[in-house]
Every structure is written in structure tokens, then in C-alpha cells.
């Protein structure tokens, strides 16, 4: 089993999960026994093939609903586990039935427990038994398509412009501090249109994505917004952040994204889906760790264009002011 699954099991497969699985299993066996011993014959007959098809459909739907974005192998694995548990329930019920009847005739007992009523019961209880194990199912890994782009001079200009205040510092005034999601919605030609957000500096060719470890991103998300699988992933699972989101905000010494945008970059169910959140939570912003972003950028990004120094800056560098210092002890 991969390391990720073991870690997921360690964190999410708690004692309560194991206890609920055991209780569900025992309850299923007891109920199946009760149904098997019911004398009333079913009023309708369904072929075995139909039962199998319906059962597979239910299992398949359940597995998919549990893990949105599940991989094909994970989906098949989930269905097989459900079938296995379902058959285990039927077999255990058969053994118990043969023991209760005292004849030890297992094939006959199995024939009775494999009938429609107990089988449907076993199938639904299999869902209950397997549910805590859903975190172990592998998910499909989707990454935004990597692309390379070369910045235009205009884009570089936008990236370093510090607002209308002092040009000496890359500070943005309140009006200039446009979050990137607002900038995107500005009309073309404006200061924050799409062209200006697809930025880089000085004609550098940059990779289109910055990978951040999942744990560092989740640490910035309020705990109540974490999804069911948040702790099921490898903490170092890469979260791809588009570079055009990062570059325009570097001058603000913080990278902020809206939770809705972040949702698209995170693995499935790591945070609660936007549909589950009210409007206030949807507009919540998340601070991305600058200390993990900046080191991934080439230093050329931070090169400043030549500046004309103020008049006071012109001094003879050989001159100095002497202070009567005493040597350090």
C-alpha cells in the first residue's frame, strides 16, 4: 500500500471508524439471519443477473459519491471491496445459520442466505462497513496544463508599477491593491485586465506554475472549511498555483487568493466545495506562504529597472564621518 494511504489510515481511520465497522458487520449478520429465517416467501422474483447489475450500480455510484475525482483503478477497487464485504457478510451469515440449525449443512444455509432478501440486506450493510475505508481509495491526480510564456514589456511594467505614490517603493495604495480575482474581471485595456495578469518580468521565460505543498496551503485555510479528505493526502502533495496569480502581487509582500480560486487548484475534497459554503465563506481569502513562493522564482524577476538617484544621493563614496568609537569587548 502506498505511503499516502498509510498516512491517511493513520490519521483518518480512527478507533471510532473501526468500531463502527465492526458494529455494522455484526448488525448485518444478525439482520441477515433474521431475514433468512423469515418463512414468508417473497412476492416477486428477480433474476440473479439483475440483482448483480443493480448491486454493481449501487456500489459504483456509492464509491464515486464518496470520493469525487476518484481514479478508475480506485473506483474498481472500491467496488471490489464492497463485493468482497457483501460476500463476507453472506458467508458469515451462512456459517451462523448452519451453526444455529445444528445440522452443519453449509451449502444449504448458503443457498438460503444468498436469496434476494438477505442479499439486499448484505449489500446495503456492506456500504456501511466499507464507508470508513473510503479515504484509502486513490484519487485521480489532475494538474493544470503547464505552459510557458514570455512576458511582454507592458506586462513587466504592470508587474513593477507601484501605484501613483512614491515610485521608489513597490507599494500599492488602497486603490491599487486590486486582488487578482478583481483584476481579472476588469475590462480589457484597464490596469488589471487579463493581459496584465499574465505577467513576468524583463522578457523572462517562466514556468506557468508554482507548486506549494498541500500542508502549507491548508494551514492558511480555516479548519472548518477543510474537506473530508483534507488530511487524507500526503502533506507534500503539490498544489499548483498559476504564476500569473503570484507575480502581480509580489510587490504587495503578500499573495492572496480567494477560496473559490484555491478550490480549483486543490485536490478533490481537500476543502469543502463552494456549493456547501455560504456567500460569506465563498468570498473568504487565503494568504499563500510567500516564503515558499519567492524562492521558486528566478532572481531576475526582482531586478529593478535603472533608476535616477535623487540629488542628495550624489556623494563621494570615499568620504566618511568619523565617530570616536570604542572597540567591541
Amino acid at each position: 500500500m502506498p505511503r499516502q494511504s498509510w498516512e491517511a489510515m493513520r490519521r483518518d481511520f480512527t478507533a471510532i471508524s473501526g468500531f463502527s465497522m465492526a458494529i455494522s458487520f455484526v448488525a448485518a449478520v444478525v439482520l441477515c439471519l433474521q431475514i433468512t429465517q423469515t418463512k414468508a416467501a417473497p412476492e416477486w422474483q428477480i433474476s440473479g443477473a439483475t440483482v448483480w447489475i443493480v448491486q454493481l450500480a449501487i456500489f459504483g455510484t456509492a464509491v464515486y459519491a464518496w470520493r469525487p475525482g476518484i481514479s478508475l483503478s480506485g473506483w474498481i477497487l472500491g467496488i471490489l471491496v464492497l463485493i468482497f464485504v457483501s460476500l463476507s457478510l453472506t458467508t458469515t451469515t451462512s456459517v451462523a445459520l448452519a451453526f444455529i440449525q445444528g445440522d452443519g449443512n453449509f451449502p444449504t444455509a448458503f443457498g438460503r442466505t444468498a436469496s434476494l432478501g438477505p442479499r439486499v440486506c448484505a449489500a446495503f450493510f456492506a456500504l456501511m462497513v466499507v464507508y470508513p475505508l473510503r479515504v484509502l481509495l486513490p484519487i485521480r491526480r489532475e494538474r493544470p496544463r503547464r505552459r510557458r510564456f514570455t512576458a511582454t514589456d507592458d506586462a513587466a511594467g504592470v508587474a513593477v508599477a507601484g501605484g501613483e505614490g512614491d515610485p521608489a517603493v513597490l507599494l500599492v495604495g488602497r486603490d491599487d491593491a486590486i486582488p487578482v480575482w478583481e483584476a481579472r474581471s476588469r475590462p480589457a485595456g484597464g490596469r488589471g485586465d487579463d493581459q496584465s495578469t499574465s505577467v513576468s518580468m524583463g522578457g523572462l521565460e517562466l514556468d506557468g506554475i508554482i507548486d506549494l505543498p498541500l500542508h502549507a496551503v491548508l494551514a492558511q485555510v480555516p479548519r472548518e472549511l477543510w474537506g473530508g479528505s483534507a488530511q487524507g493526502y500526503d502533506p507534500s502533495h503539490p498544489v499548483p498555483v498559476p504564476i500569473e496569480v503570484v507575480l502581480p502581487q509580489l510587490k504587495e509582500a503578500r499573495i492572496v487568493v480567494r477560496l473559490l480560486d484555491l478550490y480549483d487548484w486543490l485536490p478533490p475534497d481537500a476543502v469543502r466545495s463552494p456549493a456547501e459554503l455560504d456567500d460569506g465563506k465563498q468570498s473568504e481569502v487565503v494568504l499563500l506562504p510567500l516564503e515558499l513562493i519567492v524562492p521558486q522564482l528566478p532572481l531576475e524577476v526582482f531586478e529593478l529597472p535603472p533608476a535616477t538617484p535623487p540629488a542628495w544621493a550624489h556623494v563621494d563614496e570615499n568620504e566618511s564621518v568619523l565617530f570616536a568609537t570604542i572597540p567591541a569587548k
Partner: protein
Amino acid sequence: MASINYALKEISCKIVYYGPGMCGKTTNLQFIHQHTAPDKRGNMVSLATPGERTLFFDFLPLEAAQIHGFRTKFQLYTVPGQVMYNSTRKLVLRGVDGVIFVCDSQWEKLRENLESFRNLQDNLASYGYSLETTPYIVQYNKRDLTHIAPMEYLQYLMNRRQVPSMEAIALHGGGVFESLNAICVRVLANLSRKQKAGAA
């Protein structure tokens, strides 16, 4: 503003250490106080809270070697970095001749550096000063810590005008006198330039 007393042959200039809270402004002054000859400095006046936060401001009078026969005195001030003490910061800036902007190099303080720099500009503007006419240098302090931003990014953030800047470890004195010297030279040169312009 700097004053020149021709009768006493004395020049007096005011240098202000500016920057966000806990960035090391007082530490700069303390190091200077501890490492200058006692007869060339006055007492350091410091009003701090029990948590070592500057409550009002720190003040250290300092005398440099004679320049062209003039005794040169520098009055070193720090401002309280905490956001709520802006009126005090503004007061300290009155008549400033040069500024050492002390940045905290730690990642989590970068935003505070920016906000403090904007605050410096606003407060200077309230007196009709600007950084185009007031000499200043940028000191990147706490370079000995591990969780710090690279110099390239700090320069990108804080020093677009590309004025003199230097790394410092004020606690151990690294870069402290270098910063002081750099600003003093520029303040005196600026004063000289103004005098010449006035005479012309």
C-alpha cells in the same frame, strides 16, 4: 532641519531611525551608545514599556570628528514602531535631516515594512518633505535569522529608488555604524549643497 552655528562653529543634524515595530531601531541606537567614546556622546534617553517596546522615542546625541573646523553633532532619534503611535512618529520627524529606514528581514514582517514605509512617506508629506529631498538609506536588519527573505526580494520591495542599502545584524553591531556613516555623509553633503545653493 540642520542648524549651523557659525559663532560656535557647530553643525547639528537630526537623524531618525524609522521602521516597523520590533525591527531593531532601538537596538541600533543602543549599540551606537555602547560603542562610542563617552565624551563624544550624551546619555541615551529611552522610554520603553516592560516588553521593551519604545513608548515615546529614543534619543542619543552624538558628536563626530570636526569637519572643516566645525564640530558636527548628530541627534539620533528612533520612533515607536507600533501603529497606534503615529502622532509621536510624526512629531519626531519634524525637522529631520536624514532617515535610516530599518527593515525587518523576516518573511512575516515584510508587509509591515511596506506599511511603515508608506507611513513614513505620509508623515514626511505632512511637513512638506519628501524622500526625493530628504536623504535616507535602507537597512535590512536581522540578517542572522534563518526565516528571512533574500536580499533581491527585499530590494525589489523596499528600494525601488535604489538608494544606499545595507544588511545589518544590529544586535551584534553588524552594519550599524556603516548605516550611520552612510546617512551622515549624505546629510552633510545635502546640507553643503543647500548652503551653496543658498549662497548662489
